């Protein structure tokens, strides 16, 4: 019987190695798997590459992971000077790559979908294109972009069954379904546990085939 539930955050994060690329879903705090992030802080892996929409508000678990010096590089879509992440960056203690949000989403999607590269007009006319491959397609400048796979993805769900089928509530969805497909180890925290079959097949948003471990984190 397939059963992907684990009993603790320690079990959920077991084996994440130093140097791992961690895909962390969420937009602000919404859809961010806070218990797994705390678990990652406990677990101890360091020299991480963290892929996350932003550097996080000060005092948040993301900011804590950064200020603990556990992250070598942050890939995100924005960062403020007046934030923990910004201060670490300006102090030379954190490598940061800031990319457009749609390009981040599409690079993650490409990683999950087996697309080895794609072109996008996004940022092609900006300084972000400096020194990079640009191609004219249909009269439009386009940038070549590559997939952004993770070693592990940390996911926040509303419901999960033992196969790892997931639903999300409202804008909790955001990066979660995309990141869940983009790493060989996908770890989920879910608010609710449901019986297999309780999620109607038309309403499964992330299939269990993308999920490896599920931790029940109520409320």
């Amino acid at each position, binding site marked *: 019987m397939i059963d992907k539930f684990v009993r603790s955050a320690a079990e959920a994060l077991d084996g994440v190695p130093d140097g791992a690329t961690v895909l962390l879903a969420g*937009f*602000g*705090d*919404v*859809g961010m798997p806070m218990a797994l992030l705390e678990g990652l802080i406990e677990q101890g892996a360091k020299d991480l590459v963290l892929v996350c929409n932003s550097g996080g508000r000060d005092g948040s678990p993301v900011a804590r992971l950064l200020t603990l010096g556990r992250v070598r590089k942050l890939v995100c*879509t*924005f*960062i*403020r*000077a007046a934030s923990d992440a*910004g201060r670490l*960056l*300006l102090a030379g203690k954190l490598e*940061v790559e*800031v*990319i*457009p*949000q*749609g*390009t981040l*989403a*599409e690079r*993650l*999607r490409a990683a999950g979908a087996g697309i080895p590269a794609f072109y*996008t*007009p*996004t*940022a*092609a*006319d*900006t*300084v*972000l294109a400096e020194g990079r491959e640009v191609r004219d397609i249909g009269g439009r400048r386009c940038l070549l972009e590559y997939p952004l796979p993770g070693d592990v993805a940390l996911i926040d769900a509303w419901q999960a069954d033992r196969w790892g089928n997931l639903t*999300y*509530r*409202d*804008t*909790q*969805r*955001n*990066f*979660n*379904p*995309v990141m869940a497909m983009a790493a060989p180890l996908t770890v989920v925290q879910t608010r609710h546990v449901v019986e297999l079959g309780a999620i109607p097949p038309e309403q499964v*948003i992330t299939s269990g085939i993308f999920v490896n471990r599920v931790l029940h984190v109520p409320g």
Partner: protein
Amino acid sequence: MADSFTPLDRDGMAARAARDIPEGWVVNLGIGIPTEVGNFIPDDREVILHSENGVIGAGPAPAPGQVNPYLVNAGTQPITLRIGAGYVHHADSFAIARGGHLDLTVLGAFEVSETGDLANWARAAHEPVKQIGGAMDLAIGAKRLWVIMEHTTKDGAPRLRRRCSYPLTAKGAVKRVYTNLAVLDVTPGGFVVRDIIPGLSFEGLQARTEARLSRE
């Protein structure tokens, strides 16, 4: 002869832009004044607001005590949903933006050039602390890009420029600009003034603008 006029405030600019959005349009409202445009679209005019974090059919801010912590907009502010709304994930949400499915995107800006270049994400090309967010994707993808911004900086420096002095977000993308002084279209011939606030002359507006203006 000095002009005597009262520039629009934030609400005035947002309301002015809202007037021009017809029923049925799918619209992304950027962070800042653009978000406030939503407050001035009457309830009975069905405009579908898209938010980058996967909302199609965003509604106004919730009443106090009615906040749903799972429901926020692209500025991570609590919102409500319109009846008929739906959710998508982040890649599908930017497929909407990049794929040309937005009738309109409204963004804030530092500067707009007379060729429609947009600069709204950085003050210097290579500063390490960057705030890109979704603006570049939104700017290149929308059927129409409008900008709402003050006509000049606090120091009086013009923001409607021949060329942008700040790093670009997108090239040739802006179609219309709503400022606290005027509404201007970006045309192949440069900025064309569509509307000026009462009491301000065309010459007075030109004096506050670096780019050359035309009348309609």
